[in-house]
């Protein structure tokens, strides 16, 4: 046994003393150090390799366990659904402001054929024609006996039809599930909803895309899977809409009009509570667009939004309101109304001769064209343009239906002083009834701009102030007087303080210049209750004529006003407005 000295250097010194070569000892020391180092590295490596081994074993076990779990679970997706990208068919419902369904989806089936699997094509064709009389037998036989591999028979079939087809017992006839759009209220609010059609179609599903109205405007939104089926809530009220459409249809018939429209709008929020255009259609079975005749005569035409008309004397209130706003006149200022007013070769007349002069209030109440034109002259071209622009008469309305873009107001190509004078009483500028409702809402709510909307709002949405509250109030007082002592005397609805302005405009001829003598657009733009208006209602009748008297009466006072009054009488309670009676009027209580 050789003892290893504690200090290596001692050995070297020792060796030197003995005269030996110290290098051998140096090497020996180095070797020992090296070996020690390797040994320690090895022990460390042994431990770490063991760690690695265990880690690998665990990891492989986890993979194995996971495989086992997956194998033990059932495949969650059926194979059929994994083939190809599926067509997203879910479309959100549309509901009214109280959550009642306006548009929803229904499960139905499509019918298609695989002619190559057919056993008796001719018998099948014959049987199919009995179920679907609109199909042609020869054509079906041709389709079924040819080389085609796939034939659509019907895109939508009812459960009864499905059963009948089933009973034919033909293996080559197949059904595909379909989701179809259903409008349970039929023609109600047809122009708002528009309609849908099938887009991309497959055997297992078909895309439903909006073709018109709100369905088209909000198509992306309605189809957005992120909505998760949450319905789109509209500002429309189903019961009010129903009442409006009924009264309007009755009024249209009574007044022998060829078309009619009504817009009911909340003056503070801009919510359109009801909007109707007659004649209408059933969005469940939307007719094809007309190929001949004027598109504006088609039931598809939305008169309230797309139809731009000269709206007549309803415009007068804007002229007087602006003049009062500018401080040019007040309600009692006397204006020269001696007629006719000559301007170049043009003459402006009144319906009756109103004498030498009238107060501003009387001009509105009596509806004097001459007086309004004189006030417009005081305002001037630029200020009038500016004001009408702020009221929204220069742009299409922003209502959430595709047709709104088409309702672009018609403005005079060059806005002369004569234009200013005629526009002051509503001739020379065409706008839609919705434009008019939007502008009247500004007077009704105390002077704020309002944007009409079809989507339910949570509170007032005022835009820019364009009129002082006192001007608006003065204008409202005049509008109330139009009903109490003026042209709209049929517009009084007990307890609801209706205020408004009539407008009767001769219809321009479609070809050539000039106006028809016996065709008018009669409009009544109203608000109620006049002292604190909640709603504006615009009723427009196209070519009305009231024939109860000895000669046909066409003015708005005789046609549009009674219809509007009937409407207000029916819808005001539905809207939750209490009738207000004056204190001194006797209250009769009946006990049974």
């Amino acid at each position, binding site marked *: 046994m050789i003892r290893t000295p504690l200090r290596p250097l001692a050995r070297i010194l020792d060796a030197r003393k003995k005269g030996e070569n110290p290098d051998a000892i140096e090497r020996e020391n180095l070797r020992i150090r090296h070996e020690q180092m390797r040994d320690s590295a090895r022990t*460390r*490596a042994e431990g770490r390799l063991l760690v690695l*081994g265990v880690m*690998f074993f665990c990891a492989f076990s986890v993979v*194995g366990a996971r495989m086992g779990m997956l194998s033990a679970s059932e*495949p969650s997706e059926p194979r059929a659904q994994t083939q190809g990208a599926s067509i997203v068919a879910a479309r959100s419902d549309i509901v009214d402001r109280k959550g009642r369904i306006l548009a929803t989806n229904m499960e139905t089936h499509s019918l298609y054929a695989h002619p190559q699997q057919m056993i008796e094509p001719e018998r099948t064709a014959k049987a199919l024609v009995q179920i679907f009389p609109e199909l042609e037998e020869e054509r079906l036989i041709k389709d079924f006996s040819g080389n085609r591999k796939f034939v659509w028979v019907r895109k939508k079939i009812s459960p009864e039809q499905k059963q009948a087809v089933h009973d034919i017992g033909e293996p080559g006839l197949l059904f595909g599930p379909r989701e179809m759009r259903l409008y349970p209220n039929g023609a109600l609010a047809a122009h708002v909803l528009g309609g849908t059609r099938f887009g991309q179609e497959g055997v297992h599903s078909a895309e439903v895309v909006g073709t018109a109205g709100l369905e088209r405007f909000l198509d992306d939104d309605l189809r957005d899977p992120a909505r998760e089926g949450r319905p789109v809530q509209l500002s429309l009220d189903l019961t009010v809409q129903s009442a409006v459409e009924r009264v309007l249809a009755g009024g249209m018939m009574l007044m022998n009009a060829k078309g009619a429209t009504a817009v009911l709008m909340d003056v503070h929020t801009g919510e359109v509570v009801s909007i109707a255009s007659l004649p209408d259609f059933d969005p469940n079975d939307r007719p094809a667009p007309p190929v001949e005749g004027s598109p504006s005569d088609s039931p598809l035409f939305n008169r309230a939004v797309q139809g731009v008309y000269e709206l007549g004397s309803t415009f007068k209130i804007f002229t007087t309101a602006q003049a009062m706003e500018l401080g040019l006149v007040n309600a009692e200022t006397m204006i020269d109304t001696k007629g006719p007013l000559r301007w170049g070769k043009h003459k402006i007349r009144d319906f009756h001769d109103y004498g030498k002069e009238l107060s501003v209030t009387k001009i509105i109440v009596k509806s004097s064209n001459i007086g309004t034109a004189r006030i417009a002259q005081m305002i001037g071209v630029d200020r009038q343009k500016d004001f009408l622009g702020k009221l929204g008469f220069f742009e299409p309305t922003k209502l959430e239906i595709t047709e709104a873009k088409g309702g672009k107001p018609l403005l005079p190509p060059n806005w002369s002083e004569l234009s200013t004078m005629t526009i002051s009483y509503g001739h020379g500028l065409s706008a839609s009834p919705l434009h008019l409702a939007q502008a009247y809402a500004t007077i009704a709510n105390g002077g704020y701009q309002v944007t009409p909307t079809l989507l339910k709002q949570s509170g007032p949405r005022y835009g820019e102030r364009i009129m002082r509250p006192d001007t608006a109030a003065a204008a409202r007082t005049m509008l109330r007087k139009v009903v109490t002592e003026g042209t709209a005397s049929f517009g009084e609805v007990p307890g609801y303080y209706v205020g408004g302005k009539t407008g009767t405009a001769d219809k321009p001829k479609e070809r050539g210049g000039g106006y028809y003598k016996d065709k008018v657009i009669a409009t009544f733009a109203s608000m109620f209750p006049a002292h604190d208006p909640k709603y504006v209602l615009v009723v427009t009748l196209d070519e009305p004529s009231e024939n109860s008297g000895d000669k046909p009466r066409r003015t708005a006072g005789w046609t549009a006003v009674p219809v509007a009054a009937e409407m207000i009488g029916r819808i005001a309670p539905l809207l939750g407005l209490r009738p207000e009676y004056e204190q001194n009027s006797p209250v009769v209580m009946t006990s049974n």
Partner: protein
Amino acid sequence: MTEMVYGTVPVRDVEPILPKWWRTVDTWTLTCILILFGIGMLLGLAASPPLAERNGFDPFHYVQRQAIFGGAALVALFLTSMMSPTLVRRLAVIGFAGAFVALMFLPVLGTDFGKGAVRWYSLGFASVQPSEFLKPTFVIVAAWMMAASQEIGGPPGKLWSFMLTMLIVGFLVMQPDFGQACLVLFGWGVMYFVAGAPMILLIAMAGLVVIGGTVAYQNSEHFARRIDGFLNPDIDPTTQLGYATNAIQEGGFFGVGVGEGQVKWSLPDAHTDFIIAVAAEEYGLVLVLVIIALYATIVVRSLIRLMRERDPFIRLAGTGLACMFGVQAMINMGVAVRLLPAKGMTLPFVSYGGSSLIAGGIAVGMLLAFTRTRPQGEIGDILRGRMR
């Protein structure tokens, strides 16, 4: 007397190669690898006909090719495993130089086969992926450097090998081939770990990997999409992963039956990256567990054998090879079962692919060469012990 009459019997002073090889080689690992190769052929019969059909070949075109490449791979495996560690190291260093040059010239001369990453050389009859050959040879070179650094007065081999790793990773990321880059990084990390990495450094590196991953996620569309697909809890059934999961579920414990599987028709990579899904669908969990057990046996057994190894180079190189092999298999299977984000990585010896097979044969051959039983200086220990 006899010797005097007939002369001495000629005796070689070294043992004959084959008997020595058989005596010292790890027959368990060898058996596992041969079984894996057999399973690969079996699955190739199932998984590659759809591909052959798509490309307009005879249904078993790819199986034949797999057999040819497999034969070559086995020859390479046996030859390599018979070499001495020193010879392996020398050849591997030469091979590494060649593969590295090939990798560098990929952007100029390579092709992407329309897959969006330039990783291959097209040789007409076959394509070669240099990174497949780079991986095992890189392990040898890095192990060599690290082992050298453990000598007294040796070079700073750990630093060198790290720089080399980064260079290779850079080239691979440029292709882009994040999978191989990760494997190379992982191989180096494992070797460094066994070579005695300080614990603090290991933790810091884990952090670096996380940061690197984040940067890659933000800057590479390719990478980000895969991670998003992984993090998304519900599987889109029309993605590769969706099909794979479905196939595993369809297969259940015993599979839907040979040739009855459907997933191979829908998955473009059924014969390579998702071959485990084909196995699961047609042969069920049973075969999958066998495959996993085979890989686990190879890796764990090799690591345990390496624990006894005293030569630092052999220990490190063996560790690197075994771990890379195991991790590649694990990532491939982990992706199919959604334990890991989708990453194209072949299943060694089972997936179809010429370069992958031959490179795998060489790598495993080297591993076998390193895990052979050899004297570990036990006698020296005894002597030293007696001396003390």
